């Protein structure tokens, strides 16, 4: 079974909720170092609301689920990450047609999500933001599909790339978001948004692996 079912997307989003909960303190600690120490609680609040919204309205298509999740994040998270993740999921959801889209369509959706983040936030790779994890993840996902991988393997490749991308932010000087206020003092710290993006992709890989 290599299509993107509604169940798979629901399981993905539920897994993100779990992972964010588990890593909330870590995300907050990372954000304390170069930001304002709320990234963990921001995402936690958001994905708890997402799970609740999905349970309430049990969407019948993957795109519908992602769009609802995006809208919910926009309405509950605030901060920089709320509009960014919210717009990403909404854009991805709007791109995803039908009840069982193919992996290639998920790639388009992820690409649309990344585009939304880059358009809204204006960050490019190297600015020390979630874009530094998101971009290589989408690229790895695309490369894996091109190489003939199925959804589980492509998702795992994306998760690996996102984690590597997150780690790659450590030496960078932040140029966007709150960490940019620190200038060179932001060097030596991992970007919290890049780390949470890696969690999102790892959750996709785990959901797809089942």
């Amino acid at each position, binding site marked *: 079974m290599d299509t993107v079912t509604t169940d798979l997307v629901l399981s993905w989003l539920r897994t993100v909720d779990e992972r964010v909960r588990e890593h909330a303190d870590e995300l907050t600690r990372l954000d304390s170092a170069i930001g304002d120490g709320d990234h963990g609680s921001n995402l936690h609040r958001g994905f708890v609301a997402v799970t609740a919204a999905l349970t309430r309205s049990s969407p019948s298509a993957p795109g519908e689920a992602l769009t609802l999740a995006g809208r919910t994040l*926009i309405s509950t998270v605030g901060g920089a990450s709320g509009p960014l993740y919210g717009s990403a999921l909404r854009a991805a959801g709007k791109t995803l047609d039908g009840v069982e889209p193919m992996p290639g369509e998920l790639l388009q959706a992820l690409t649309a999500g990344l585009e939304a983040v880059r358009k809204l936030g204006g960050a490019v790779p190297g600015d020390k933001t979630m874009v530094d994890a998101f971009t290589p993840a989408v690229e790895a996902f695309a490369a894996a599909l091109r190489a003939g991988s199925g959804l589980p393997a492509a998702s795992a490749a994306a998760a690996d790339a996102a984690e590597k991308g997150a780690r790659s932010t450590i030496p960078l000087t932040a140029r966007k978001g709150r960490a*940019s206020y620190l200038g060179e*003092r932001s060097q030596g710290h991992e970007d919290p948004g890049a780390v949470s993006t890696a969690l999102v992709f790892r959750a996709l890989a785990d959901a797809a692996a089942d």
Partner: protein
Amino acid sequence: MKKFINSPDTVVRDALFGFAAAHPDRLCVDVERGVITRAERPRAGKVALVSGGGSGHEPLHGGFVGPGMLDAACPGEVFTSPVPDQMLAAVATVSGGAGVLFVVKNYTGDVMNFEMAAELAAEDGIEIATVLVDDDVAVRDSTFTAGRRGTGATLFVEKIAGALAEQGADLAAVADVARLVNERSRSFAIALEAGTTPAAGRPGFDLADDEIEVGVGIHGEPGRSRETIRPARDLAARFVDSVLKDLPLSSADPTIVLLNGMGATPLLELYLLFGEIAALLEERGVVITRSLVGNYVTSLDMAGASLTICRADERLIELWDAPVHTPGLTWGG
């Protein structure tokens, strides 16, 4: 962490109940939607001022809602910008048909969330203008970065634009004066201790017994540099030099000077520091036309202070002097 809270998750909501209980006659607090408005309904034809931002900076912004200043404030979670739904609810409540000015501190999250709200409100046919406040000279301004932060000048913008709106000016004029005040205002802050957010449970940064954080923001972000504590007289020079470098002043300029406490600094120290700053400004030929000393744009329990100076003119001073009746700022008939 020891705080008067019930749980880190319910701080803002619980505080809004207290805010409502404390000001039943003058404010309307919609706890569910996260909006604070004036008790009176909006006056038709008056430009409405809506601001908001993360909580933890009280009295900013909720304490500045009232005649002569804001029409509504949208408190986000602690140090987290509010969500667009809050701004839309505020606009729906206070719009008097003459347009709405969003006063937004320049932080990525605030900018994005207000922008989304502005787009959605515009779709509903409501005219929205936005002023971005970015007065903090500790941050280098550049189009490649997030730009300067918005701090103490927010109070100046909300007070002066609020006064002009109260006089019946149209949206373009109110937005213009708001931008003018922002352009002519600069701030600089020094922290002696970081504040502690309920969510993080520990200070945003750790300082040794003799260390201070110079050029800090109001969200527990560390500053530009870590230095050794010095006498108030020397720190006063640091404040004054930093602000004046970016805001050249002649003795002909009227000024409004705010020495702002970050939350945990006793008034006694603020007054002492203000004395040193006033003496330095006098030495440099700067006239303090109006001043304000106190905790206005705070950062939870951060110990520290920020200096904000506005290069005013007669008109801005007049608008500053206009009556204001809010929980956090009150004067005039």
